[in-house]
């Protein structure tokens, strides 16, 4: 398995964490997510080794007596879920060097999350969007599906602009069934575009997690002296005394992230600010069941 962007150490540390959909889903296979059909089909599906977080009442004590190991009984009301992981590969995601490049960070976060989701039995599809384009591989379950996901993620190069709505519409075509959406982006696009996308996802009844990936420079603006800035997407140029604009910039970026948080809350999505300096593990724990 290619592990250039997959941090196995982090994945190992998060092995006992589960990522659950907050909503009930229409899964068919046994999983960890609450079924929409709870009570209608309480048939026994299979045994599953006990993990932390499983309800003790579901432990089959008889099996414990025979095998001296804890198993929980899985019924049809706990099913698996499809996850759609979408990474923003626009030009602005190319900012930063090495591991602190935003795209690289987003890939790493996506790969680690995909690994953990596959491991918990869910099916995972992954893709990238840039401009109006979406490139995605459909969701599948099984650890062996990690390879195509990694290949997909590793093939990404930053280019184009940041547009959310169009790629999401295309993704929704692929993920018609119940699915949760994970979006990793710097969201450097119009706020109306972001709001429209969140609105769309809510309307499609998709649980959504937004990882807002920003570089440290974009948050702190730690430059010195006069500099000429060239926008990575619009190629707009501006010469400024960075010392003079620093405070104003920081204020505006705080306002921007605050507004995004509110929007996500309004449209029942989860917002996770993920600066590239923040360990992937910390960002993932924010959305995991403790």
């Amino acid at each position, binding site marked *: 398995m290619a592990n250039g962007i997959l941090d196995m150490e982090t994945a190992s540390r998060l092995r006992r964490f589960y990522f659950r959909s907050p909503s009930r889903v229409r899964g068919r296979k046994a999983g960890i997510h609450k079924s929409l059909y709870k009570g209608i089909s309480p048939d026994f599906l299979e045994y599953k080794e006990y993990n932390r977080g499983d309800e003790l009442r579901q432990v089959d004590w008889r099996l414990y007596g025979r095998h001296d190991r804890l198993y929980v009984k899985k019924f049809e009301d706990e099913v698996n879920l499809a996850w759609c992981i979408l990474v923003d590969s626009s030009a602005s995601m190319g900012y930063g060097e090495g591991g602190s490049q935003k795209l690289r960070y987003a890939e790493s976060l996506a790969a680690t999350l995909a690994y953990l989701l596959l491991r918990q039995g869910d099916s995972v599809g992954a893709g990238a969007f840039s401009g109006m384009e979406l490139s995605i591989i459909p969701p599948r379950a099984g650890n062996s599906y990690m390879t195509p996901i990694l290949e997909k993620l590793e093939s990404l190069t930053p280019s184009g602009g940041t547009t959310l709505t169009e790629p999401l519409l295309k993704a929704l075509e692929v993920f018609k069934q119940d699915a949760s959406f994970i979006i990793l982006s710097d969201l*450097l696009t119009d706020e109306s575009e972001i709001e429209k996308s969140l609105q769309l996802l809510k309307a499609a009844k998709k649980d959504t997690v937004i990882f807002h990936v920003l570089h440290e420079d*974009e948050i702190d603006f730690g430059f010195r002296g*006069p500099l*000429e800035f060239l*926008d*990575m997407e*619009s190629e707009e140029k501006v010469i400024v005394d960075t010392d003079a604009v620093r405070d*104003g910039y920081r204020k505006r970026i705080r306002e921007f992230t605050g507004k995004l948080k509110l929007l996500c809350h309004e449209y029942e999505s989860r917002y996770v600010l993920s600066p590239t300096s923040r360990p992937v593990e910390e960002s993932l724990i924010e959305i995991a069941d403790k």
Partner: protein
Amino acid sequence: MNFSFLNPLFLIGISAVALPLIAHLISRKSGVVKKFPAVRFIIASQGDASARSRLKDLLLLLLRACVIVLLVLVFAKPALFSFAPAGSGGPKALGIIVDNSFSMGYGDNFERAREKASELIETLPDGSFGIVAPLVAGEEGRLSPTSGKEALRDQLSEITISNTFTENEARLEEAFSALDGAPGQTKEVVFITDLRKNGWQNEKIERDRLTIIDVSGEAAQANSAVTGIDASYGKDAVTLGLSVSNFSDRPEESLLASLSAGGEELSAYLDIPPGGTVLNEFAIPGEYISGDKTSDKAQDRPSDDARGTFREVTAGIPRDRLAVDDTRYFVLSDSDDFDVLIVDGDPREDARLSETYYLARAAETISEISGAHITVEDNDRFLGEKLSGYDLVFLANVGDITEGSAKELGEFAARGGTAVIFLGERVRASSYNALLKDLLPAELITEVEGEAKIVPAPEPVFPKQIGERLSQVGVRKHIKAVPSPGAEVLLGLEGGDPFMIKKSFGKGSVFLVTSTADTSWNNFSITTVFLPVVKGFLDMPGVANEGRRNFLIGDAIPIDASDEADRIEVRNPAGKRYVIETSPALFDKAYEPGIYTVREGGKDSYKFAVNVDPRESNLEKLGIAPEKPDADITPGLVKVYRDIWRYFLWGAVMLFISEAVARAVFS
């Protein structure tokens, strides 16, 4: 209020003010280009910061520019002259010396100097004493302070441009001396000048309470001048050499120089490099016609000598801002040679040990100016020498004198020649007394040993500068002499013996120096007065000036008059007539350049030319502004704040600190 800079060239540094601005613009233009994703937030923030940033930029730019300006001003050494209002402070004693040398005729320098002097007079407190005098002394006599502004205004109105060369230090010293006797505690001299280099012996003026006001306004003033005319005589033509000088830092191209002589008008276009002089020769054909009074020597000359039918020559260049030196006058002389014989009574193989070593060196130096021909002979050759070809004869420790040589010397003096006799150990008093009885200015008695200094005569016969320095001369041995009747003791020794005696003999003069010409009996020949004294022999009335026809303004001009002349008149170029004494016939009022006419017995006798001293044509400015060690003049008429640059320095330091603080605050 008068504000000026002592080092104005440093003001060029003001252009450095543009540096902070250029640096600012360069930093804006060539800043590092940084690719960045969130430029829209930067642009949004720029609006807030731009006003503040502009204020910061402007303030820092202003502070930096001010620092540079102040530093430049520090180096330019600003000087502030402020004049107190009339009546303020106590009475003063003020000397105002107005430079009226001919270089002040450049542009309106002289008018500005008069205006400045007038301002000073008006600001003089009541009860003050003052002197307003020209730098070039006229006929006003000794300087003496006077009270009352009206009198000072009158003194100022009488000052006109002079055409003579100046000696600034001497005149300023005279003004200070005159003020010493004036009442009032504050005594100062203001010198209003164009600060030309000429006229200053030293470029540094060490004098308290001297304020110099420069009215020239320009560091360099370009000037071209006709600086010389000379003539050489051929059989068929006279060749006139015209020297034209360019006293500027730019070349003169195709300068038209014209020469007028004997009805001929000749001209040439001259290219003169900066600071250079070009000699252009004009040949004028003609035959000798002796229209003027001629000397004995002139009669000796070959009759076919091509001295043209003309006598007067006028040469000129186009008028420039200093017009007085653009024309020069010349009168052809009867006598173009001046011959000096030096008889060495004690010659040595090593010339430095010879009796006449120092005398010959002095004569050679003078010959560079006068064009005299120097001949040095020993005692033996002198005995057979005919002196008719000489103008001046020096005898130095000449022991052997024969009757023939004594007679020759007598005839030489009678014809108008000058003899200067130095004594020494070879001189036998009895022989001299017997053979040169009529000629010798004194009877020689005996050798006297003992240190003695020279005592000037009650009525100085040498210029003041020479007279003061004669005290340097120490005499260890001399021959006691008793002056003959009619002889004049020019210099004496402590103890009463004469040192230098003069006697007129016929048309000539005889000088007797009672000690040696070398250093064996005295140090006369190695003192600074020796050379001017030797030259003084030539300048004295009746000494070898016959036939000389070209002089400088201010010269005391000897007039060649016949023995029977009872009334001699000199007419200046403006037509003004001066009657002069016949004995000695000396004209000392040659203040205007031009051709002067000597009239004797109601008829024109001959003409001579008077010109400005070409040295003054060089308008090079004094390199170093005069320093004034004590700037704290008691409040009154004139205050000079030389230390004003210190305030600018402190200002620059304060602004520099302010700039650093402003940068820290804004960052």
